């Protein structure tokens, strides 16, 4: 298919998570024209899906929405969501990106975000955005503070009943929408493609993903979110309010057999954060964190950890060897006791959270020849003095795309990537000044 159009910008940002948004804002504030290309139907990345954030316990939405809105309204920023990046290459003096706009089956120009289609749709689908704990419709807006507020149809589950098209006041529903190819040319690019969690089912000793009431840390973020699926924390299998909750640290990290030898940097802190929020929500519940080392190294993090200990959260130094289903949908953990008298110990909990690690969300193979390291994250070619510089001239990277990190470090790094990109742009404009 011929690309339908070609657009020109100073800078192209791939990924609309907090790293991409911050990099775009820092470039746009320096008066450069920026395009953000996001594969998801909304910008905001993982951060908008979190409950509250360590160490300040600010609600994640309260910190993310203003950055999302500021990007969406910035006169120098254009946002392209639900887009598939098929190629990103240096082309002479420019970076050329081939992009496919995926069909939403809703005309983005006509949709006014009124949600009539969503209310009208009779099909209920497990809501992935809420850890599948509740349901959404087959045509929907991802969540209340998504940007843009444009509906999209899940064709896999649509029953083609035609209700949505009937109720839409602007005639935006379009069952025949086609993918559209277009090209973005820019002088510089920032890769901010973020992460996904290590899979729940990768370890046979941890039940291969089949154990009830063993959930991922991101699912727990949703359970804890003030506007979450149940508005309270319950055990998914039977709705019981849990009396005892445990965290398995390094569940997908620091483990060579999983191909993730590195530390994911955030899981100790988010487990402590969730434990604190849980002890607020369920004051009577026992909360235990099984860990190898507590890595609370950022500003204010050690104090946060000590507060959690003082609040009565139990920290047990142990590497969990096995996770099994116990009777009454309890989860049994087995580990070797180090601190007590030794030997193998078994303990059962109502609800167990896997503190999963981070792996890159984007695999550039076949799309972009940017060099990656043995850990699969994008390689930094000047790792100490300019960590955001990649193997391609004029292409920079920020956030978890270039190694696990928390929000604070991500935001600083995004500023740094914007600085590198703006220096690059400046040097192109004034070759002598560089």
């Amino acid at each position, binding site marked *: 298919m011929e690309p339908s159009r070609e657009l020109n910008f100073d800078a192209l940002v791939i990924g609309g998570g907090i790293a991409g948004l911050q990099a775009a804002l*820092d470039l746009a504030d*320096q*008066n450069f024209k920026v395009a953000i290309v996001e594969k998801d139907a909304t910008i905001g990345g993982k951060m908008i899906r979190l409950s509250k*954030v360590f160490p*300040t316990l*600010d*609600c994640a*939405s*309260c*910190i993310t*929405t*203003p950055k999302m*809105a*500021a990007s969406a*309204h910035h006169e120098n920023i254009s946002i392209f969501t639900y887009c598939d990046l098929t190629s990103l290459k240096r082309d002479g003096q420019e970076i050329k990106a081939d992009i496919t706009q995926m069909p939403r089956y809703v005309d983005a120009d006509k949709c006014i975000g009124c949600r009539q289609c969503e209310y009208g749709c009779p099909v209920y689908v497990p809501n992935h955005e809420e850890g599948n704990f509740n349901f959404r419709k087959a045509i929907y807006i991802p969540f*209340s503070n998504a940007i*843009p*507020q444009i509906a999209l149809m899940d064709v896999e589950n649509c029953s083609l009943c035609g209700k949505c098209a009937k109720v839409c006041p602007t005639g935006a529903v379009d069952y025949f929408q086609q993918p559209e190819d277009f090209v973005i040319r820019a002088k510089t690019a920032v890769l901010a493609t973020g992460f996904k969690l290590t899979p729940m089912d990768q370890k046979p000793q941890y039940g291969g993903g089949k154990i009830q009431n063993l959930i991922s840390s991101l699912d727990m973020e949703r359970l804890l*979110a*003030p*506007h979450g699926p149940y*508005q309270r924390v319950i055990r998914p299998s039977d709705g019981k309010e849990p009396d005892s909750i445990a965290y398995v640290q390094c569940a997908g990290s*620091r483990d060579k057999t999983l191909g993730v*030898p*590195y*530390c994911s*940097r955030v899981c100790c802190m988010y487990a402590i954060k969730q434990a604190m929020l849980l002890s607020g929500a369920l004051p009577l519940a026992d909360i235990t964190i099984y860990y190898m*080392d507590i*890595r609370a*190294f*950022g*500003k204010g993090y*050690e*104090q946060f950890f*000590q507060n959690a200990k003082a609040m009565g959260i139990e920290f047990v*130094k142990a590497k969990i060897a096995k996770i099994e289903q116990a009777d009454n949908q309890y989860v049994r953990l087995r580990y070797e006791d*180090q*601190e007590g*008298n030794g030997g193998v110990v078994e303990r059962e909990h109502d609800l167990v959270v896997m503190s999963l690690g981070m792996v890159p969300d984007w695999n550039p193979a076949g799309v972009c020849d940017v060099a990656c*390291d043995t*850990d699969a*994250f994008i390689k930094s070619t000047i*790792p*100490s*003095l*300019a960590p955001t510089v990649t193997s391609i001239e004029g292409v920079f990277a920020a956030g978890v795309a270039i*190694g*696990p990190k928390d*929000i*604070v470090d991500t*935001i*600083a*790094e*995004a*500023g*740094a990537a*914007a*600085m590198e990109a*703006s220096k690059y742009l400046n040097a192109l404009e004034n070759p002598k*000044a560089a």
Partner: protein
Amino acid sequence: MSTKKTAETEEPRVGVYICHCGGNISDHVDVKKVAENLEKVPGVAVAHTNMFMCSDPGQELIQEDIKSGKINRVVVASCAPSLHETTFRGAIKRADMNPYLYEHANIREQVSWVHHGEAATAKATSLVTAAVAKAKELEALDPIKVDAARHATVIGGGIAGLRAALDLAQRGIEVALIEKSPFLGGQAANLERIVPTGERAADLIQDLAAKVMADSRIRVYTCSRIVKSEGYVGNFKITLKTQPPDSQADLEKLQEVAAKGEKPGRFVPFAGFLAVKVPTTASEQVLDSGAIVFATGFSTYTPRDGEFGYGQNPEVITLPQLIRFMSQEKSRGRSLTINGRTIRRVALVHCVGSRQIPGIHEPDADGGLNEYCSRTCCAATLQAASEIRERYPLTHVLEYYRDIRTYGRGQEEFYERASENHVMFLRYEPEDPPQVERLSKGNFPLRVTVKDTLTFGEALSADVDLVVLSVGMVPSRIADLVDMMKLPVGADRFLQEVHPKLRPVELANTGILLAGTCQAPMDISEACNAAAAAAAKATSLLSKGYVELDPFVAQVDLSRCKGNGACVAACTVDAIVMQTVEVDGQSVERAEVNPALCTGCGVCVAVCPENAIDVKGWTLEQYEAMVDAIVAD
């Protein structure tokens, strides 16, 4: 602005927008009820609620009401204004209304987080009603525009300062780089190879410093300190004093450099990059600068006398000292030797001066504790351990730790390498730290005993030749600058950013930015990222050539001012002066405010006997309206 005129002449029609904050507010405050209550308040045209007012749909709600002419004043009731005041002002401005016709009510921190049930709903209603009363009195204002010098001052010539200076210069901003010592490179000059890349610190410093020296847009002032700072963002006036070095440490380093015959322009190990000739006379100059970047870095913690035997036993040293000894050690023996002594066994102790806990650790002379983790010492200690094992196979290494924090990319490998090198790990709890005692007889000078939690809390003793303390980071001594510029400092005594996520490299003092370890412990790559982020902020601030300041400044009512002068005396920032003006053909003295200097604190308002001075956006009339509204029911 056409809307400005109409807004002032038209009857006020206030739009009230109440936020659920996802549940943060609505779990405790009945927001629907508050909206119903407000709808009845005179002057309120609409009252809406929304899940997240700061989200796009929330902001659009306000904008639609403005555009349709329903409202000409806005009250948002949500979180603290520090979080989102600018968000809402921006939304109002985009809808073509004056952004200062807006008032904020904090019903989260001041209501839902501290009150519950009906009391919470009642208090929220009163606060929002008061905000409406004020909103009705608001006037359209314009931000104050001041010219900004395209010049930035970077304080501190360590890695972060060098990085920030280079970045700013490469964006066409003139830079003054100020360093108190004769050397550039800061603390990194005391390192050999850095974790995890294995690069030589010397090469990194040489690379950055040489680029800084070669850049015509950067002026480097070594042996210099700031002695005075005045002005405001865009227009700082910084007085700099350059003088011959006098600190003992600097003089010793200079002697070593002279002995080696090194000239300026080169890196000297354990000293730094000697930038220019050392001055022989003192001089002062004043710089006009648009922004200031703090990159004053850290110093290493000095253990107290007797802490792990430090100061009482020459065999107890710090990690930086070990690094230096090892770099000077040229013997090719199979054991590490230090000052001629063969080291058969060495104990490395983590977390010295870091992760201190009230009630367990002793506070320092100022009563402070370093409760934070210093972030870099674990990896550095593991690197030293492996280096000892690999270079000196007959020297055994024991590591006493609390948690191993090799969090960074490529750092975990150092932990593994140390294990492969048969470094022995022992783990202690803070309440039972390793005890170091002097042995009077036997083969070894020192014995280290610890309750090892890796072996069920058994007390393990080891006799050693050397104890090395992994000392943490403490902020550099910059009390003079903190006082002079009134900078916010955290409980951890590092400089305190406005908000760790929303504005991580900015201080509350507009135009003053943070780079590197003056803010918190970080490693070289993290300090470079922070420095570049600070440079990006400074560039956005200065690239327009002007900055816009909030118009909440004092304003003199000349019809009332009698030239009494109380305000001039009261003003703490010298923003008010007496001017001679003609009134009825006579020359009289009247107060005049410099809006760029005024911080809007209002002390002048309190002292004026004539009620002739008021702060715009916070006038006495507006306050009275709020108080009346609160006491009305």
